[in-house]
């Protein structure tokens, strides 16, 4: 344990004793509960009074600031950090449930060695663990790091380590960035605006938001910030108007004033058609980018009507500050990159670049020159190829669960067999950890130091800081410390805190900060106190789209699903569960939360239009086999009244085969159905997957919060 | 009950008529009505035997019980809310309609309990001491328990015989 930790030794208050007082009710037994006071009183703490620590949420990559209430050394409640520019005191459901990750009964409790695929762990000590990592680093060319999207400080450190020892740069991956098609968005931004940026869409000040499948109230980019923006848009003097186009009515679409169910893959056509209609009516002539589109054909292919196009164009004409959002579902298509370009071009046509309610370049986060996006599926594919070729001897995985999150079709599981040593730093025994030879558990996010860059969602440049709010509950160790120890003299830091201090030292002098300090120690104290550092004023810049309107964009009608014959085909629409997202399945309270659209709890389901179900002779809770070219899953049907009849949808987030008792063997993982096909930007083109539905004759009731009878009427109960 | 000075005779009759006549003849012999107790296995009215009606306090007990029950109800309905005022549902502390329900139930409860107890208090039983009795009574016989001066005993015995008594015995203690 590093010195920086021993400083916080006072937090080591007997969890057991304190917990017991809470647990036991009345009765004679409680008389013999012991209360163990602090041996030394911590600074600013009174016995029996809560202490609040600022830190950063690690449930997704957005980097919201949290305030953790701790009591007698136990973390009690996560609350939003009021000063944080991103979430401004608010939190989402996943952020609230983060404590159930830390105090989860199924965490990895000690460094361990184990046979791949076997859940029994053999405990080892940390010195041996460091030796294992050290050995791996002695073969830098054969070493590959695979990191998650949180947290950034570890990515920076690993980058440093890799540079120091000469290993290939680390790869980052996250299922949410796959679903958001971040590579496509970045590539489109580069093509249209000349800068591969994660753009900031100022919906707060817009009076018309047209979103192509952007589920920004659920998981998209930075949901808390966008929800705040949404609320501001609605609360304005003139209530902003919101239109969502996507094949199913998502939680976000439910908040839209107008929802248009369009066929997946036709987004580009619709964008072009809108651009053409708008330009023709406003300027009399359509720009080159959109002139190719045939309105009638676009309507035909997208499943919308010409009247609906007219309606949308009329809205655009009347709006003062319109903005168009490129959702992940629209971009993760074969023509996704073109679609992304079309959406950005339409924004340029609407003349909202750099204006209130429009599109901005997110300012570079502190300690970063530009945005480093996570790896696209193509890049992961390349890694898989290298693994298969035997070029990777040691794979070190942290903060990501690729065996679950990546499509099985990419072949990672087989490739792992070719890797001699797989080391996982997982806090949880997830699928990838169980496929590793060693698990050297990192602390949970709330027990860790670190920082996370705010990449989008706020106009300010912001760095969100983490600090441990409680002493680590188990015999875990910060991965940063392990790496620093393993790298030995290759790095100039003694421990993680020293590394962090060396990084933030650059900000002490930075202008426009939320606070200023004379020297590093005081800055570091304030950094902990406020949970990060950020600028006071927005420094978002206006993108320039010179010439974009003149570049021709062409789209093809999406391949229609076969509607004939016995084996009817459906487009499969997979969306990240708004509640579980990529890594929430192990938290019991998140499992218990009703899905906002279907109110299903604790399971996966297949959404199907009631008409289609009727036609196929399928009822609620019937288990069907969903077959794609890549694989098949069995899942219960939820007859969802607001989905296209030719589309079926499955949420992503369940279907774990490991990952603790609350996640294990629960629901299905739709990633098994994806093919490895990618779009021009390298993102997985999962939007084009077609599936067949087969009845199994089984029934597995879904647990719903809603009363089926009350919501759908009598006769709907089975 | 003092039985030392007086003799007790238990005359058992098969039917009501002879017993009724026996009562008359006893009266003729100068045995006071109060000294004759009619014991029967079936309720027979005093009128059948030509005797004065019995006095019963059971109804008074019932009335007293009703008053006490009402008092209990008043305490519950009006007393307890003012002992610890707890406000619920925007209702007044002591609402009228529920009070009526409570008053009714407690009144009836205590009234019936005191009626029940009244039966026993009034007829001075349970009594587990030996008593003058023959089991045939519960088979439908009617018995006259006659308390008479020793000098009258023979006459009474003869009169009973005349009236057709099945058996006449000097009352002995029967454990009942």
């Amino acid at each position, binding site marked *: 344990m590093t010195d920086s930790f021993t400083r916080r030794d006072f937090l080591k208050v007997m*969890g057991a004793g304190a*917990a017991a*007082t*809470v647990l036991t*009710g*009345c009765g004679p037994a409680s008389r013999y509960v012991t209360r163990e006071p602090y041996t030394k009183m911590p600074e600013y703490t009174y016995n029996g009074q809560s202490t609040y620590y600022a830190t950063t949420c690690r449930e997704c990559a957005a980097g919201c600031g949290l305030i953790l209430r701790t009591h007698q050394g*136990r973390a009690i*409640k996560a609350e939003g950090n009021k000063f944080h520019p991103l*979430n401004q*005191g*608010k*939190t*989402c459901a996943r*952020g*609230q449930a983060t*404590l159930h990750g830390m*105090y*989860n009964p199924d965490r990895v409790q000690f460094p361990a060695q184990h046979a791949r695929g076997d859940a029994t762990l053999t405990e080892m000590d940390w010195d041996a663990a460091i030796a294992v990592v050290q050995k791996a680093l002695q073969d830098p060319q054969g070493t590959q790091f695979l990191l998650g999207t949180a947290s950034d400080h570890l990515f920076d450190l690993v980058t440093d380590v890799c540079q120091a020892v000469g290993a290939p740069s680390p790869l980052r991956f996250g299922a949410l960035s796959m679903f958001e098609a971040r590579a496509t968005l970045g590539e489109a931004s580069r093509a249209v605006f000349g800068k591969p940026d994660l753009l900031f869409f100022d919906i707060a000040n817009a*009076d018309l938001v047209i979103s192509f499948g952007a589920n920004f*109230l659920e998981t998209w980019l930075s*949901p808390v910030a966008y*929800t*705040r923006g*949404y*609320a501001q848009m*609605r609360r304005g*003097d*003139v*209530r902003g*108007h919101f239109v969502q186009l996507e094949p199913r009515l998502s*939680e976000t679409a*439910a*908040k839209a004033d107008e929802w248009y*169910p369009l066929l997946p893959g036709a987004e580009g056509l619709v964008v072009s058609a809108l651009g053409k209609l708008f330009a023709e009516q406003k300027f009399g002539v359509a720009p080159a980018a959109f002139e190719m589109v045939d309105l009638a054909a676009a309507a035909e292919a997208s499943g919308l009507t010409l009247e609906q196009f007219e309606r949308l164009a009329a809205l655009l004409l*009347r709006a003062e500050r319109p903005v168009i959002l490129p959702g992940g579902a629209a971009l993760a298509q074969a023509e996704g990159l073109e679609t992304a370009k079309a959406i950005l071009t339409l924004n340029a046509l609407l003349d909202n670049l750099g204006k209130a309610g429009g599109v901005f370049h997110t300012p570079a986060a502190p300690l970063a020159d530009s945005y480093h996006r996570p790896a696209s599926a193509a890049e992961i594919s390349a890694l898989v190829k290298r693994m298969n070729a035997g070029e990777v001897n040691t794979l070190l995985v942290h903060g990501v669960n690729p065996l679950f999150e990546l499509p099985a079709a990419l072949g990672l599981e087989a490739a792992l067999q070719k890797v001699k040593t797989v080391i996982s730093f997982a806090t949880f025994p997830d699928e990838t950890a169980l496929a590793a030879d060693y698990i050297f558990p990192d602390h949970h996010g709330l027990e860790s130091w670190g920082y996370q860059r705010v990449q989008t969602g706020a106009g300010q440049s912001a760095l969100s800081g983490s600090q441990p709010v409680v002493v680590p*509950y188990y015999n875990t160790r910060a991965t940063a410390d392990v790496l620093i120890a393993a790298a030995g003299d290759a790095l100039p830091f003694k421990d993680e805190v020293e590394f962090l201090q060396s990084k933030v030292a650059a900000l002490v002098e930075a202008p426009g900060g939320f606070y200023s300090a004379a020297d590093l120690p005081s800055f570091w104290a304030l950094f902990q106190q406020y949970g990060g550092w950020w600028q006071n004023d927005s420094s978002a810049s206006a993108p320039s789209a010179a010439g974009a309107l003149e570049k021709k964009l062409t789209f093809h009608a999406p391949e229609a699903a076969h509607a004939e014959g016995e084996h009817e085909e459906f487009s499969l629409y997979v969306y990240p569960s*708004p*509640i579980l997202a990529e890594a929430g399945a192990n938290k*019991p*309270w*998140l499992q*218990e*939360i*009703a899905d*906002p*659209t279907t*109110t299903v709890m*604790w399971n996966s389901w297949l959404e199907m*239009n*009631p008409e289609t179900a009727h036609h196929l002779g399928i009822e609620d809770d019937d288990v069907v086999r969903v077959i794609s070219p890549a694989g098949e899953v069995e899942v219960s049907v939820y007859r969802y*009244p*607001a989905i296209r009849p030719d589309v079926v949808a499955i949420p992503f987030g369940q279907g774990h085969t490991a990952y603790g008792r609350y996640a294990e063997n629960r629901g299905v993982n739709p990633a098994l159905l994806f093919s490895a096909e990618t779009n021009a930007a390298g993102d997985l083109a999962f939007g084009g997957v077609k599936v067949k539905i087969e009845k199994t004759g089984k029934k597995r009731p879904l*647990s719903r919060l*809603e*009363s089926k009878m009350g919501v759908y009427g009598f006769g709907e109960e089975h | 009950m003092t039985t030392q000075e007086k003799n007790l005779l238990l005359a058992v009759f098969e039917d009501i008529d002879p017993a009724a006549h026996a009562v008359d003849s006893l009266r003729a012999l100068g045995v006071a009505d109060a000294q004759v107790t009619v014991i029967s296995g079936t309720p027979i009215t005093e009128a059948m035997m030509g005797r004065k009606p019995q006095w019963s306090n059971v109804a008074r007990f019932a009335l007293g019980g009703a008053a006490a029950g009402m008092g209990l109800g008043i305490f519950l309905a009006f007393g307890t809310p003012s002992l610890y005022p*707890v406000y*619920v*549902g*925007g*209702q007044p502390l002591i609402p009228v309609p529920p009070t009526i329900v409570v008053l009714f139930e407690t009144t009836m409860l205590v009234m019936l309990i005191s009626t029940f107890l009244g039966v026993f208090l009034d007829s001075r039983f349970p009594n587990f001491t030996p008593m003058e009795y023959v089991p045939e009574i519960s088979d439908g016989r009617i018995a006259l328990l006659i308390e008479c001066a020793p000098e009258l005993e023979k006459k009474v015995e003869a009169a009973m015989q005349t009236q057709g008594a099945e058996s006449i015995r000097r009352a002995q203690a029967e454990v009942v």
Partner: protein
Amino acid sequence: MAIPKIPEFKAEWKEGEEGRWGMAVDMDLCTGCQACVVACSMENNVPFVGEAEAGYGRSLGWIRVERLWEGQYPEVKMTPYQPVMCQQCGSAPCEPVCPVFATVHSQAEQLNVQVYNRCVGTRYCANNCPYVVRVFNWADFDRPDPLPNQFNPDVTVRRRGVMEKCTFCIQRIHRAEDQAKAEGREVLDGEAQPACAQACPADAIVFGRLDDPESRVSKLSRSNRGSHLLEELGTQPRVTYLKGGSNDRLG
């Protein structure tokens, strides 16, 4: 045993039009994200019950986010998300039916209070609640170690057989009041925040003092967009639901 005589209660508390604490929920802003539900459960030690029990209507969340459907595809529309928690009725139907005074109207806080330790589990209150917001501890639901470390010490951990419901986070109200009293002042607007309002990313839930006409919640409650749930029952709910859309220029 001797009954100590309690002197006569003289204070006259009149149920005001507004009550003391209130909440306003802007349904136009509510995105149905369920952050309030999780926040509430974390703050109030609400147990989770597992798939089978949850599917059979035994989940214990104190808030639920309702939504219904209107129309048929493709003209189908979801009704606005509506978080429903205890409405803290001024004239609460649940209170008078409890035989043992386990749910009572707090005269000091003007809230509808569930006294867990007094509850004998007849569940009548839940039957009589028109909003169906009361939940019952059907069992001692298992929270394996070390999950109980997260328990909030300010909130009783309920055992099986006890009714429970939203308290407007009365422990936070008490904390704020205690703080204010120690400092010799009134509770400030926004000082006491229930977990749901604090978490709500869209700021759709606003909580505060109704007896202060200048508070944010008072102003919102008076808004012409506001309405109460099942107002016709005369329960005087303290939660105002705001509907939106009137100033939509493009709609």
